[in-house]
């Protein structure tokens, strides 16, 4: 009796799978994003196209892929479809270590809550961990997040755990150990970070570059805390290599000497008196230095960005400097930052390139940041809203703008991970 049921059940199963196979061949696409305007800088696409996803990968990008060939179709008419954004300057080494700043502590944020809702699918932590705690970073953040998490390793062994003391300790800046650890973790370590150093010397920068050379990866520099200030020109033209990154490109800090007297600004790209971009900045760009936004809570000034943009100096890469001090302030999220540059006159295609394919090249991850067939399906769908919007810089000053990008849909590895207005869901009425 039991056997009879088993056999009958098997027959039903066989029939079921036969039907299923038929079904798959008719609808071989898992997800079809139809009718959107695709912007893919690598593949030089900037037009209306359909994007098909199958088995977590980009399956086809073409005009008029029939909806009947897909199990699920998203209507993207009037929307922009781009590769998932890549943010190369986040702070996502969140943890509960008291008084540890951005290294396994409470000023850093868990990535998934701040990435997908802005169209970001890859975030690089910018120096939260050094060689002493990069393993913990992997365990607690890289392995636990749905967002693809990469890292710039800090040249400081203990990572970004306190500006005033730990991050000044040159004895804890070891190029060989840092490079060795970077190589060992090359599946997610994509660069070296040097930041927050207040000494009047170049040693930490040179250590970071030495580590970058050994590991074959770029260095990202957060510059400008040296007291008295060091010349930015020397950093860009003498110490960094082509391909190395100046982050906080549009930062403006008032600068003081040791006696507290305000001095000429040595560390901003735009001369505050003439409003002109300093000539060596153009030279640095020609040399191959990468200019990254790294907005953050204190590192983006309209007084720098507006003249620079007016003189045609657009950023190579848009990035967040996401942490507790920036998420609720002028930065907010990557879509808001992208909107700022749109409003400053950067064409949408360039804004998207600077948030997708450009950063992928900078971090030597050419498999990311585009919608080539066969690549992992990380996709963002944006609505470009028209209206009256306002944007704030790091000092609380605002500009008005008529456009704003809003992340409608984010897809990571073929799966919908953010859907603002239920574009991908069945309706109850």
């Amino acid at each position, binding site marked *: 009796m039991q056997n009879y049921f088993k056999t009958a059940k098997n027959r039903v199963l066989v029939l079921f799978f036969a039907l299923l196979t038929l079904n798959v061949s008719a609808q071989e696409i898992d997800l079809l994003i139809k009718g959107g305007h695709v912007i893919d800088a690598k593949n030089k696409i900037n037009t209306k196209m359909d994007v098909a996803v199958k088995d977590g990968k980009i399956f086809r990008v073409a005009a008029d892929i029939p909806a009947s060939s897909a199990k699920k179709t998203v209507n993207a008419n009037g929307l922009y479809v781009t590769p998932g954004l890549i943010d190369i300057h986040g702070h996502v080494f969140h943890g509960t270590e008291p008084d540890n700043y951005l290294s396994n502590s409470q000023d850093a944020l868990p990535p*998934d809550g701040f990435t997908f*809702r802005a169209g970001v699918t890859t975030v690089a932590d910018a120096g939260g961990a050094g060689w002493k705690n990069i393993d913990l970073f992997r365990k607690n953040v890289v392995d636990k997040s749905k967002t693809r998490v990469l890292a710039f390793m800090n040249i400081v062994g203990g990572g970004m755990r306190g500006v005033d003391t730990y991050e000044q300790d040159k004895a804890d800046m070891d190029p060989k150990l840092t490079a060795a650890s970077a190589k060992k973790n090359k599946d997610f370590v994509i660069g070296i970070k040097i930041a927050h150093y207040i000494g009047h010397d170049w040693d930490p920068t040179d250590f970071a570059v030495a580590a970058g050379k050994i590991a074959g990866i770029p260095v990202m520099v957060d510059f400008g805390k040296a007291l008295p200030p060091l010349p930015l020109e020397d950093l860009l033209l003498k110490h960094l290599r082509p391909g190395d990154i100046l982050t906080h490109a549009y930062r403006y800090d008032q600068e003081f000497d040791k006696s507290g007297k305000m001095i000429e600004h040595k560390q901003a790209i735009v001369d505050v008196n003439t409003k002109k971009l300093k000539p060596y900045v153009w030279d640095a760009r020609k040399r191959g230095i990468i200019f990254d936004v790294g907005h953050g809570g204190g590192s983006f000034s309209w007084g720098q960005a*507006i003249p620079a943009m007016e003189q045609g100096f657009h950023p190579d890469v848009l990035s967040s400097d996401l942490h507790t001090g920036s998420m*609720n302030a002028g930065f907010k999220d990557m879509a808001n930052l992208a909107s700022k540059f749109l409003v400053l006159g950067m064409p949408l295609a360039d804004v998207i390139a600077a948030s997708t394919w450009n950063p992928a090249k900078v971090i030597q991850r050419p498999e990311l940041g585009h919608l080539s067939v066969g690549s992992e399906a990380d996709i963002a769908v944006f609505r470009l809203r028209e209206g*009256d919007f*306002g944007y704030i810089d790091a000092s*609380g000053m605002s500009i*008005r703008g008529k456009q704003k990008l809003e992340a409608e849909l984010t897809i990571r590895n073929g799966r919908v991970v953010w859907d603002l207005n239920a*574009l991908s869901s069945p309706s*109850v009425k």
Partner: protein
Amino acid sequence: MTAYMITKMFPKIIVGIKSAHYWGDFTQVDRAVEAGKLANVPVMVDFGEHQPTNSIKSLFLEHLRPGDIFTHTFAYGPKDLETVVDDNGIVKPFIFDAQKKGIIFDVGHGGGAFFWRQAVPAIKQGFKPNVISTDLHSDSMNGGMKDMANVMSKFLNIGLTLEEVIEKSTASPARVINRPELGNLSVGAEADVAVFSLKKGEFGFTDVRRNTLKGTQKLDAELTIRAGKIVWDLNGLSGPIWDSPQAISR
């Protein structure tokens, strides 16, 4: 012990006792209520899954006190958890009795506890939650819940008035957790203020099974003020224009 933690150690930050995820009978709820009585605070119940289901009628009318909180009100998993709305889409009559008795019905949307098939008929039949809340965690923030303004917008689109939605997200929760100093704009109160814009357009809202309800209104938090300080400003409402005289003089 739990009660002592509240009354002796942390009376300022602990506002209630939670009973959740217990797969047995009423034991856990009863112990929570015991602690709640000792500490004079409400109990919030995330009623444990159990087959066959435990009776929520008994929970409301025999185990909980007036002022205690039933969260995940619009959850749906009828095999494991008794629902508020029956299979025919009718709110069970004792639910109204329980609310009249003083049981607090809380939304607690979360990643798995809000279904249109429960919420839509309930609101239509006049059963409204007492409190709107999120159940914020890593699964709900990117799912149907998203954030508090989104959950509030959902109720706006299924028939609560804006006034009701705000009341259930401010004054009502303050009352429920015995914090009458919160959730109002009385002169002298700490200046916790939210400014919303009510967007009109075509919006979609998903429940935890990704089923969609189309709506025409959405609340957007424009400005948030905590203890008198601006902690969120979506569109630069509070910032001077960067090259205006006000900006230069700063």
